[in-house]
């Protein structure tokens, strides 16, 4: 089954075209890397899927539905910035997620936070950057969603935290879900990806299985990316 489908999808900001006639179709059960340099349209695509933006032209659907409150119930979105009230502590955040999302698995979230020794009484604003990112990822991955949209989940954390974050993603998505990870840190994520999507100036220039890509080019995704996007 298709989880995310874009048909001739475009998005303009004034007279700047951020996404240009994008056709994309993602299957369930896949971890997909949305890869492109800064300003290539990664965040725009993710925001269209989470209905923070509406298309200028074309269509985007999630499990057959256009983005709406129906799709928000099955899409778990991790924005690329802190989006939670910073006075909230771990307890408050669990309550917030429980109130908002019927598919939130509180036990799972508590288990992960406990294993990381996160103090449930510490407000977000007192947490380190890495801890904040981990907490937000735990909340996002503790939902039983059909589509996970992770916008730069590993930017700005140390390599050990990256490892933890990637393992959390692998161990928590289920076979019927799709995970879309946007990043420019390709070397760090390529081992966990099924498929790679390259975005360049708002257009998709490649959508291929990572194994096939390595077999046909004899290169890592990271090397191939550097070649395609050489400045």
């Amino acid at each position, binding site marked *: 089954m298709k989880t995310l489908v874009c048909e001739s999808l475009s998005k303009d900001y004034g007279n700047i075209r951020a996404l240009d006639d994008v056709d994309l179709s993602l299957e369930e059960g896949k971890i997909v890397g949305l890869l492109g340099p800064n300003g290539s349209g990664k965040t725009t695509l993710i925001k269209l899927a989470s209905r923070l933006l509406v298309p200028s032209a074309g269509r985007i659907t999630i499990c057959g539905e256009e983005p709406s409150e129906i799709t928000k119930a099955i899409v778990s979105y991790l924005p690329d910035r802190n989006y939670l009230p910073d006075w909230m502590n771990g307890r408050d955040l669990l309550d917030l997620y429980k109130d908002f999302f019927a598919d939130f698995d509180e036990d799972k979230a508590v288990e992960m936070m406990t294993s990381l020794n996160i103090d449930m009484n510490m407000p977000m604003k007192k947490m380190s950057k890495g801890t904040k990112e981990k907490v937000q990822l735990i909340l996002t991955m503790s939902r039983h969603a059909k589509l996970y949209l992770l916008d730069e989940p590993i930017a700005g954390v140390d390599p050990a935290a990256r490892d933890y974050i990637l393992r959390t993603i*692998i161990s928590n998505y289920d076979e019927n879900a799709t995970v879309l990870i946007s990043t420019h840190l390709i070397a760090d994520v390529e081992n966990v990806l099924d498929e790679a999507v390259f975005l360049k100036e708002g257009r998709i220039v490649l959508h291929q299985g990572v194994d096939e890509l390595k077999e046909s080019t004899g290169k890592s995704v990271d090397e191939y990316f550097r070649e395609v996007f050489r400045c």
Partner: protein
Amino acid sequence: MNWKFSDDVPIYLQIIEGIKTDIVSGRYKGSDRLPAVRELAMDAGVNPNTVQRAYAELERQGLVQSERTSGRFVSVDEDKIRELRKDLSNEYIREMYVHLRDLGMDDKDIVDAVKNWEGK
């Protein structure tokens, strides 16, 4: 096992080779149980679908058998292990030849060098 992957070869092929090496070296014995897909995926830090693909290929080659409820098991006898050892060692020897020919050695030089190697 401690997994370390090189970047330019598909991971599932590297997992297959890793498991074959473990079988040949005796770390996995006939009828040992393989880790569950998710377990190995977590351990190696790779996608579960990749592990699935590696296991399916090992099954196709008859080295692994899956039992519906209890998991996957190594399925090898002495003959198969010998054959597998030959396959893997041929690959290493081939690589060695490629490198040594690159250094300008002919096949006789290579055989002599192996015989007289001091690191044995």
